[in-house]
């Protein structure tokens, strides 16, 4: 005697690992407009990443190059000829600096997210699971950081870490750490909320009654279940990291032009050019920022929608469509998704 209720879809586990990776699994279950958004985002982000990877091959000049064999670059030259997107007032090649700038952006994203994700996840798990005074103190600190305008925190951190100006490594790290300070509370909050929800789940209680220790429960039972939303926060935070970096550069706390290319800094330098009709020094770094942030946000938002079964679009069921019209179905509440099966 065994219960013969059919076993539900086994797709999830039997599929090869590659099909279960975050973005790829999302791509496979998307349809229509949602797939269009995801693909657009992926293409924009892909181009951004490839540019960063192959910057030395793509850029005709270095980011701080002011002259070549034929002599110094002319200042403020219009796009065309030797300089595809023109040159700046200081004589830098705009195209090269935009290309090199993508590398800085990637470095900052990676450094910022890596630094904040570990601290945020661990603090969130411990704080949510143990609760008590530790939880209260951490939440108050996180709220206090939230209360600061994030750019202000970033500026303070930039000054503390590097005195405001520095090399590529120092500049990137300063930007990354200042962004980290703002991001840790975000990861902390998301993980803490999930942990508190999971703590009351019967499977955690059943681990408790068999005598599992707190560390075991946190690492084996809660950690994996609480971190499923991380790819989403990662993509959304990545775009925010770029904006913060650009803001820092724009305010003059970025990276010196001699140590790395940085879009925000270039924008700031272009500010004076606009009144004299020199548009190319500002438009292209600006476009680069919009491009990258748009790409990452599109990916993030699509993942968000695809993760939620109530927002996820599906192909209309093929058979059973014999009915005249399904207005009734179309305007109904999507509430009962889980009860459907």
């Amino acid at each position, binding site marked *: *005697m065994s219960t013969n209720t059919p076993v539900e879809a086994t797709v*999830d586990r039997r599929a090869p690992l590659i099909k279960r990776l975050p973005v790829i699994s999302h791509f496979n279950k998307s349809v229509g407009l949602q797939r269009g958004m995801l693909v657009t985002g992926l293409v924009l982000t892909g181009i951004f990443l490839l540019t960063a990877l192959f910057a030395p091959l793509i850029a005709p000049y270095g980011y701080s190059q002011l002259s070549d064999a034929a002599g110094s670059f002319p200042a403020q030259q219009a796009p065309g000829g030797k300089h595809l997107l023109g040159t700046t007032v200081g004589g830098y090649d705009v195209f090269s600096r935009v290309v090199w700038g993508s590398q800085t952006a990637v470095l900052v994203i990676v450094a910022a997210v890596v630094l904040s994700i570990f601290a945020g996840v661990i603090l969130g798990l411990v704080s949510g699971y143990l609760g008590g005074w530790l939880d209260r103190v951490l939440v108050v600190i996180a709220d206090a950081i939230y209360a600061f305008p994030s750019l202000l925190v970033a500026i303070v951190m930039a000054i503390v870490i590097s005195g405001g100006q520095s090399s590529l490594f120092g500049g990137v790290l300063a930007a990354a750490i200042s962004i980290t300070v703002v991001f840790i509370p975000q990861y902390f909050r998301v993980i803490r909320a999930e942990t508190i929800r999971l703590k009351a789940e019967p499977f955690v209680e059943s681990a408790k009654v068999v005598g599992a220790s707190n560390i075991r429960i946190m690492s084996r039972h809660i950690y994996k279940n609480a971190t499923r939303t991380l790819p989403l926060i990662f993509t959304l935070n990545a775009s925010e990291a770029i904006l913060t970096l650009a803001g820092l550069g724009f305010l003059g706390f970025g990276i010196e032009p001699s140590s790395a290319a940085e879009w925000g800094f270039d924008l700031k330098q272009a500010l004076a050019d606009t009144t004299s009709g020199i548009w190319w020094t500002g438009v292209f770094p600006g476009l680069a920022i919009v491009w990258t942030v748009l790409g990452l946000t599109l990916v993030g938002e699509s993942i968000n929608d695809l993760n939620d079964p109530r927002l996820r679009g599906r192909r209309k069921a093929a058979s059973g469509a014999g009915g005249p019209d399904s207005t009734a179905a179309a305007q109904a509440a999507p509430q009962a998704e889980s009860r459907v099966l």
Partner: protein
Amino acid sequence: MTINLGPFTDQPKPVGQPVLDIDNLKVTFATDAGDVHAVKDVSLEVRAGEVLAIVGESGSGKTVTAKAILGLLPETATSGGAVLINGNNIISISAAKLRQVRGRDVAMVFQEPSTALNPVFTVGWQIAEGIRAHGGGPGGKRVSAKEAKARAIDALRKVGIPDPEHRVNYYPHQFSGGQKQRVVIAAALALNPGLIVADEPTTALDVTVQAEILELLRDLRDKYGTSIVLITHNMGVVADLADRVVVMYQGDVVEEASAKSLFAEPRQAYTKKLLAAVPHLGRHSASEGMVERAHQGGKVLVEAKGLTIEYPGRLGTPSFRAVDGVSFTVSEGEVFGLVGESGSGKTTIGRAIAGLNRTTGGSLNVLGYEMLHLKEKTFKPLRKEIGFVFQDPAASFNPQLTIGDCVAEPLIIHTNPTPAQARKRVGELLESVQLPASYADRFPHELSGGQRQRASLARALILNPKLLIADEPTSALDVSVQAKVLELFKDIQQEFGFAALFISHDLAVVDMLSHWVGVLYKGKLVEQGIGNHVMGAPQHDYTRRLIASLPVPDPTEQARRREDHRALLGI
């Protein structure tokens, strides 16, 4: 389409002509795993003043059918066929027309009354909302707020809410669960629809409250001629209320018959199987023929003396006493059944024995350990002697771990075995709960509810515990699955010989398994005794009421019991 005669007309409608006519209804859902044909081909008819019950297990398509009647299917659904109410085909009419039909011609009563009502509005406002949305008055005039309220009061009176003039201004939280369900029914009745669709209207309620709601629904049919489509999995409820029964299985109608003939002589094999699986109070009692309490020679594993458990109140409110001076013992090898309705404290006691709740007074001795001074460190070695089976098998497994890892967990924590040893032991255990050993590699979501609950039993038993606590282990399962799990539980208990505390709200289930039964009411143990003595000749008033409220799956017997119940309540 002038069926709406306002709420004041009490004449029954002419019997015979169909209020609802479903023809070849098909509903298909688009899901990630492809199309799911939830309803394949359903045709049925509901006549005026008739109660039609649609029964079936989960996945049979009964709820989807109910939702199709009101046009409440989600966007992912595609439907075909026809659902005719007063000449309107619900599947094809426009959204504006559908809104008119809802409430006026057909209304719905939901399963969970506390979520069906909006907590920030008074019940009167919520009942009046429907009346005003339909312009309700003769000639389609707008209804004044005053008149709408008067009608809401009327509707509340109809469903038996005492003092409706006053209580129409109450908020949902000021009503008890059963009264909330009455309010939901009143809202459905506000426009006097000819048809009410009730989706599991009593599943979330206690047995004694369920009896009252069933009584009310029966009244509606008899007094006002309202037709009711009753969706339920509870055969007792069907026997109590339904005139005609449609049995559904995997999206198809298996059998359709009058209630009396269906229970007396089911024709289809599936129906026979389903009816045989329904626990029936007084049959297959575990304590049959017992004269005195069994297993008294052995060691006493759990002893409660005047046990009190309080939950601290919020600032300014006194603490809540969930368990109040309860005394009982569980001896080696004995199955102790704890019955009670929600809020009786039965789960709290189970959790306290497992160290999940703290006790606050009296004494609770578990395997020689006094739980009043519970310290996790000193209690931990004893945990391997206690197994725990949770109510919802789907939620009690970590979805990220395989069944094998989950079942092996207690073993790994307490004995630190090699992976090969653990695997072997898990295989043995799975075999003994009648699951193939290869299931160890599966993930929880790949198992059915019954299979998961077997795995859950395997996990609880892997360390050979002396005591097993089972908290409503079968209430999340379908009847036919429940029957098999209960049988397995009985066999395994005899084979392993552990003592068990079996907690359930279902008297029939408790009676099937337990040697000794305790009845909890509002935190107090009002009665305990040998299972079939308690069920057959209850001593305490509450136990009597509880047993009389339980509908049995047999219309003739249930009609007789209903009379007894009425006599008991003095109606």
